[in-house]
């Protein structure tokens, strides 16, 4: 099971963490990966400048609402295999 943790602290929230969450939820549903990916929220990863911060397991990525799809295909899908 892969765990994706999205920062929902104030700074990331203002940069669009809700859209990032919604984007990921849609993509995961589209590909039927609900059983393989667990989504979670956290308040602040201490790297507010690079938000929206997202952890794939323990690896940190910087994502924005515009780059969700790219992040999903380049960072999430390859790590599932």
């Amino acid at each position, binding site marked *: 099971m892969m765990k994706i943790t999205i920062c*929902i602290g104030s700074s990331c929230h203002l940069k669009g963490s*809700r859209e990032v969450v919604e984007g990921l939820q849609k993509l995961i549903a589209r590909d039927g990966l609900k059983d393989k990916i667990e989504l979670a929220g956290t308040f602040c990863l*201490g790297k507010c400048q690079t938000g929206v911060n997202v952890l794939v397991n323990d690896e940190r990525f910087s994502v924005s609402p515009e780059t969700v799809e790219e992040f999903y295909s380049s960072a999430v899908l390859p790590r599932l295999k």
Partner: protein
Amino acid sequence: MRKFDTKVQYLKYKVLRAVARHAWKGDLLEKLIDIPKEIVPGGTPTMRCCVYKERAILAERVKIAMGGDPTNPNVIEVIDIACDECPASGYSVTDACRGCLAHRCEDVCPKEAITFDEQHKAHIDKQKCVNCGRCAQACQYSAIINRKRPCENACKIKAISMAEGGEAKIDNSKCISCGACVYQCPFGAISDKSYILNVIDMLKKSSGNEKYKVYAVVAPSVASNFTYAKLGQVISGIEKLGFFHCVEAALGADMVAYSECKELAEKGFLTSSCCPAFVDYIKKSFPKMAQHISHNLSPAATIAKYMKETDPNCKIVFIGPCTAKKMEVRLDRVRPYIDSAITFEELQALFDSRDIDITTLGESALDNASYFGRIFARSGGLADAVAEALKERGIDFDLKAVSCDGIEQCKAALLKAQVGKADGNFIEGMACVGGCIGGAGCLTHEAKNKADVDKYGRQAMEKTIKDAISVYNIGKDAE
């Protein structure tokens, strides 16, 4: 720069700041007995009969700043020697009595409590007087006044009386720890116990948030406090004290509104559970109504519970306007989530104990909640949020909210509801007048505070409750 409403608050702040300074330094136990002398170095007394009494009282204030009397379960405590033993409440005749012939006062008194001395001046027999006030209305010289002890007058639920020695006494079986008396006593003889030492200890032992993270859950009434700086600077200040991150209690309020509206629609009648003093009031004085209290945790406890689920090792400190919160965090159902609670007054003391001038800091973001979560801070906001949540969830329920502004209105509404004659189907109870923005732990209490909160509400990025709480449902299937 005016930070407080009264000099009593300022004095309390000076004590808190001194205690905090030594605690950060680690020499509190050695310097403890010197603190009164630090604050009143000597010379001419400015508050009491002599500097020695001033220092004796300060020693008691230091004790309260360090958590107070551990044998007293209440967080609100009387400092016996600070109490000026104001004259007993009730009507009395002043020097303005001219000793007239008419004796209207005597004629209107239903209890024959008024007599006259050799100079024909009126006297009231306290044994007979029932404080109806008719004599005061009748006197053409306004010579009869109604004296009220400020503490007893502040306590609308009558939990304060006079002890045998004349000092104020709190009946813990009635007291709801709202802190009205704390704010109103002109001598500062009643105080809320402080847990700043727990918070400092928690921050120190976290080793810079390495061992565990310390989060602050900040109440939305922050918008009407620290108005000498920007909100973002207050948040920076909290982080500078050593907190890892601030989260809005208002996000918890959004969550509460969302689930409360459903509970209300299912049960048909509900009293709110957001204000800990109001909940305590129902339990103590209207036990039969307790079954109608919403099952929701308070907003702060709701968000704290969520945070502890995402990070079980973290510590959470509530920062707000509320003295009753200090009681709430001890409840079995809240204790696992909130580790400590401090007031805005205490936060100001903590800032200054570290010489943090927040006006010089950059701004940090604080944006988790919606407009509706944020307006919980003022009377009527909770009912507005429940109405919005009903709409957003498409629940068909005819909400008739009774927004009670202050404990007197709460009492009136509960008395009616108790006999099945409630004016509505949802009682929003706020013990403090104005709502949380009138809380005893606020730095200031001003008319424009409500406008400050509404403005802060409108600044929220999320416009709906659903959007604000969507983060809370990550990983859960949406309802």
